[in-house]
């Protein structure tokens, strides 16, 4: 199984999901009109990863903007990682600009509905 890497576009984020290290990253902007089609290949990749996950998985999310259709896809991604958490250690790290209270609130919303360790990490401007 190969790593999943996607370079950023004007409306889509950088993605790097490393199979062997279990270190995953999503960063930049996630504002595609059709988020479902955009995230489907990644979610298919994660379905395979879940079958034989690393002993430790860390997903770092550093988003500047995301639309509400992307938030549905992120929930789907987090749900898949919840199933990994039954077999091994999983942490989601949600980075936000310390002045961006909406991005903090979004992280708190995900944290509230999920059953995996979800860290909120402020970043200085």
């Amino acid at each position, binding site marked *: 199984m190969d790593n999943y890497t996607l370079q950023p576009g004007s409306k889509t984020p950088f993605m790097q999901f490393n199979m062997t290290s279990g270190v995953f990253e999503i960063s930049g902007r996630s504002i595609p009109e059709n988020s479902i089609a955009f995230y489907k290949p990644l979610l298919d990749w994660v379905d395979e990863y879940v079958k034989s996950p690393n002993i430790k998985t860390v997903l770092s999310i550093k988003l500047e903007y995301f639309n509400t259709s992307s938030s549905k896809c992120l929930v789907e991604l987090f749900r898949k990682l919840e199933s990994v958490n039954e077999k091994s250690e999983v942490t989601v790290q949600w980075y936000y600009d310390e002045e961006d209270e909406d991005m903090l609130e979004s992280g708190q*919303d995900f944290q509230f*509905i999920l059953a995996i360790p979800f860290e909120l990490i402020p970043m200085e401007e």
Partner: protein
Amino acid sequence: MALNHNNIALEEMASSLLADKAMYNYIGIFDQASADKVILEVNDLLNHHDYSLKIRKKAFCITIEVVQNLFNYLCCNDVVYNKGIFLIHNNINEVAITSGNYIRKTEVNSIKSRIDLINCLTSEELRHFYRRLLEISSFSIQDAGGAGLGFVDIAKKSGNKIEYDFLDIDNEYVFYIFKIII
């Protein structure tokens, strides 16, 4: 908003909305390319304006939701009915975002009831409602939009009530105006 006109042309409607000088306006066909163009131009505009980071980010996030929502509601490939307007007005320490597009009359009640429900909620209730929608959201091609999260997100981020109006156009269509102040 109190705009009551029958069979009004898009350009006339836009003119009445533009009367108090928009800092940004797009009037015309709304397709993928024009939606992208609006989002890109609004991003540049907000970055070169003297707003706080907080207002800039809220205004841009809401612009994305409004433009993509407008694009999702477009009346197929009809050259008359796939036109829309998107305006930004600059008030003191405030940004007003207005969109307008044609929708079928059959969609009016559904949009109206969703906005009315959201407008009744306090900020705390909005947050709980948003979390509930997020929790039950489904990942399916059939439900490619924001699962109703868009309106709630806009109301939550703006901290204001959503204003709307439906202007009668003909037997089948109305012109749907959406306005939010940030």
